[in-house]
């Protein structure tokens, strides 16, 4: 882009003196700062202008400067750390310095919730087996499942706030309507659990409600574990690395989906075709629930209006 950015800057600043709400002026001033290589000011003004591309470009420049400056020493520190760790591990194995900690960890697993938490990590490698444990009431608890759901909701909300400006669907945090986000997260979870259990009971599913709730909770572990780190890392990324962000977020969601499929199959002891049928029926039931809710809402609203109108008319003319 060629243009008299710097020459235009004072004029746009003058515009802002008369009206500080002209987004275009912020954009133009940000462009000027960018051309002047005053990146920190440019970043601020791109933020005002809600220009994600400009913000991303500027951030790339700023990050580049930091990398240029510290990359060498950072790599040195990493390498040094790696050597120190290696030496430490070897010595530790010989002297057993961390033995008390290990014992403590072992004892902690006697507490149910801690055990439930440790169980979460087992799903990464052995999902099918792990669901079997749940079904046999060997591991996992309802309390932990509920905590996990709460955690998922919390992660959802917090990640909206901490996702970097470049990738955040909301340009500014005041636009986040927290109550709505909570409903949007909790409602599908509740509907899924209810619908899946109901559908399973009439289609030879073996799982009980408790198993469905715990199983579904554990199925969401990829989201529970990775959504927040991804949101935090997004602060360091620019549009150039958009692939990393979108791929990882999609990966987490797909993973959750696969986990749910496995969950249905194992908990209810279905064949592959039965699993597919069950899931489709579950989704249809969820839709029906919503539709019914909406219809009831409309009907009761009408009734309310009707009664209100009668009362008003009577009070006015009576």
């Amino acid at each position: 882009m060629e243009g008299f950015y710097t020459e235009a800057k004072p004029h746009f600043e003058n515009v802002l003196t008369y009206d500080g709400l002209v987004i275009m002026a912020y954009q133009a001033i940000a462009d000027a700062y960018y051309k002047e290589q005053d990146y920190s000011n440019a970043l601020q003004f791109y933020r005002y202008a809600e220009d994600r591309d400009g913000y991303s470009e500027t951030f790339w420049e700023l990050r580049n400067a930091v990398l240029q400056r510290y990359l060498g020493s950072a790599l040195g520190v990493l390498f040094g750390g790696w050597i120190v760790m290696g030496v430490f591990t070897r010595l530790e194995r010989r002297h057993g310095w961390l033995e008390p900690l290990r014992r403590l960890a072992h004892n902690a697993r006697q507490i149910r919730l801690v055990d439930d938490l440790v169980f979460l990590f087992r799903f990464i490698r052995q999902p099918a087996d792990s669901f079997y444990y749940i079904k046999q009431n060997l591991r996992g608890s309802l309390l932990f499942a509920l905590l996990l759901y709460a955690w998922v909701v919390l992660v959802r909300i917090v990640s909206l706030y901490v996702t970097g400006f470049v990738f955040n669907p909301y340009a500014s945090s005041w636009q986040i309507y927290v109550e709505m986000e909570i409903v949007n997260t909790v409602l599908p979870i509740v509907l899924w659990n209810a619908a899946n259990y109901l559908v399973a009971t009439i289609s030879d599913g073996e799982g009980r409600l408790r198993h469905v709730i715990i199983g579904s909770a554990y199925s969401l572990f990829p989201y529970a574990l990775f959504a927040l780190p991804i949101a935090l890392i997004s602060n360091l990324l620019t549009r150039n690395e958009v692939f990393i962000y979108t791929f990882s977020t999609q990966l987490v969601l797909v993973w959750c989906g696969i986990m749910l499929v496995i969950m249905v199959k194992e908990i209810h002891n279905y064949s592959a075709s039965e699993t597919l049928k069950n899931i489709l029926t579950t989704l249809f039931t969820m839709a029906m629930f919503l539709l019914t809710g909406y219809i009831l809402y409309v009907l009761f609203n009408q009734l309310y209006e009707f009664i209100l109108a009668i009362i008003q008319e009577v009070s006015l003319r009576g």
Partner: protein
Amino acid sequence: MANLVNPRTPILPSSFGRHQRRKGEQNLLAPALSPSPLMGRGWGGVKAALRAALVLLLLLLAGSFPRLSKADTPPPAVPASYQPVAENDRFQLYVDSATLAFKLLDKGSNYLWHSGIDELMEGDRLNQSWQAFAKSGVSIEYLDEKAINKRVSIANTNHALKVTPVEQGVSAQITFSDYGITVGLVLQLEADGVRVEVPFQSIREGDAKFRLGRVYVYPFLGATRGGSVPGYMLLPDGTGSLIRFADSTKAKNMFYGRYYGADLGMIGIMPFNSRVVPPLPISFPVFGMVHGEGQNAFLSVVEKGSAYGEVQVHPAGILTNFNFLHHAFIYNEAYFQATNRSGAGVTTVQKQTNAFDVVIHYRFLTGDAANYVGLARSYQRYLLEKGLLHRSDTSNPNIGIRLEFLGGDKEKVLFWYRFVPMTTLSQMHEILEGLQLPNPEVIYYGWQPLGASNMPPTSLALEGALGSLDDLRALADTIVANGGRFSLYYDPQAAYWEEAGYSVRNDVAMAITNVNLEGYNRLYNYYFTFDVLKQRFVALTADVAARMNVGLALDSIGWTLYSDFRQSAPLNREAAISAYQTVLTEAPLPLGFYRPNDYLWGLAQAYYDMPLGDNGYIYTDEAVPFLPVVLAGYLPNYGPPLNFSANLQDDLLRHVEYGIYPSYFLTYEPTANMLNTRSAWIYTSAYAQWGEQIRRSYQWMNALLAPVRGQEITVHVKLAEGVFATTYANGRQIVVNYTDRPFTRDGTTVEARNALLLEGGL
């Protein structure tokens, strides 16, 4: 009436008057002549005519003698149906006891004022109904069972009229027999003109089928035909606005304006459109009419009943060929009661008639006073006599400047709010140090915890991020020590929408349609009932006054007046005026008001957001500084914040022309920081952007306006197109040149788009 003697008859035969009128032609509004008494009287009549001719001849001869000056010319004729009822050293009042119309003779100028049109001339466009309206002293509008309104006058409906003489006037009771409606009227002569009263206790609605809608009094007082008389009507629009008499008008309809704006209690929700600047409501119940500048004029002031009053202005060319304007008073109104949420409902008439007395003063002026400045000065004298205006302190040798600072506002985070600081106390201190203005009028907006859009507390509490109460006290004391004043912004009426701190169920005022009143000023808000308003205001002011020496800058309450139909404590709009006056008078700290209506001028230390003209309606020809002239020398007034000005230089010149002090709205932080708060309506405010402009404009204005501060305006004239001169009581004159070319007269030059202070007049 029979006992009222007519002193004119024995002296001269009645035909004398007719001739004299033709000669003198003082009254350009052609005369409604009484039917000649000569007709059908036989010999006696002829003798009388001869005698009359003789006297006339003598008089004509006498008229040619040089010693007879204008003042000695005999008064213009008054038709026989008018009986003299009162006289003082300036006026003589004649009343027609059939229509209650009056004529007022100004003895100084021999000018005869007519309260209506007695007889039509050729070319007059008045139908039967308008004729009756023009002829009658009183007309009413009634509402039938279907809430349909119709206007009837004394002259075109069955009525019973009882007239009794009272001290310096008459008292009348008019019963409109077909509708069972009775209205009383007291017409009295007073020192400056005529006083008209419609006491509420005289009003009767005897037939349940008909309700009294409006009462019109003397609608055609001083009416003129088209452009036959040079002169104008003065409207209370903005600072004052003129409609010059002309045969035609660009306007398509009349100007009807409710004093103090629409009654929210009747409409419920204030119409709001963010793309439209709402018109300024009428802030004083006054209008005027000038028959020839420098010749004759009158001013009409509503003393009581203005809350239900309305000004109705008809320029010639709309419906009729007359220019006339008058007050109308609303006793009952039809309203639409929705009965379900989809909007269906019924139109019905309010259950209870509005209770209020009406008192109107008509003040008549002649000679040099007969122009809009004279009218304003007459109104100023009226206010002083009634104690509604006081001279403020002008000991500071410099003009004031209003600096309003936004403390901050809140932004939503999760379920809570985060405070966005915009100007802390120390930053304000830094700005004031930097500006070094000798007489700042500082207002702090958004000082309460969490800032501007949070509900202000009922005891003094400052947002912690702005500073401590001790800092506040110290800053206020510093400002006062340096010659300025410090006030906290407060809107006593507003219950901010969707905010905590009050109960929507119990605390807010209700409209007649059973909905909560909603409106918009700086924020969207409900309106408190008077009881809650008073309780909160008294609590806050007592606490503030006990802790520190600061004032309050009160928004909304100055210009918003609503009736409240909440059943627990209904409040009539007229009663709200005195309720506000009482609670505000008792406030233990000095008060400034944003655009206060006339009834609060006496309580104000300062007037903020003085309009810089009128609303620019198509009816009007030009804006005039009527309001600034009224207040000049008494109440210091500050214009709207200049950082929001669309045409800065013109607005600065207007400030100087009208004697208005400048205002700026400031924040220390860049404006963009609060883009996501509800204070985003302040679209430019950063000190870094405006500091230099403030210093420059203050210096320029102070040099021009400081020498005339505290002085009354005595003359305001247009010297040429775009050049105006304002003269003050101490003889100094300010000439303002809006044009792009220098203006020169008598060797004195005012540069283009500039102003000049002169010791004497140009």
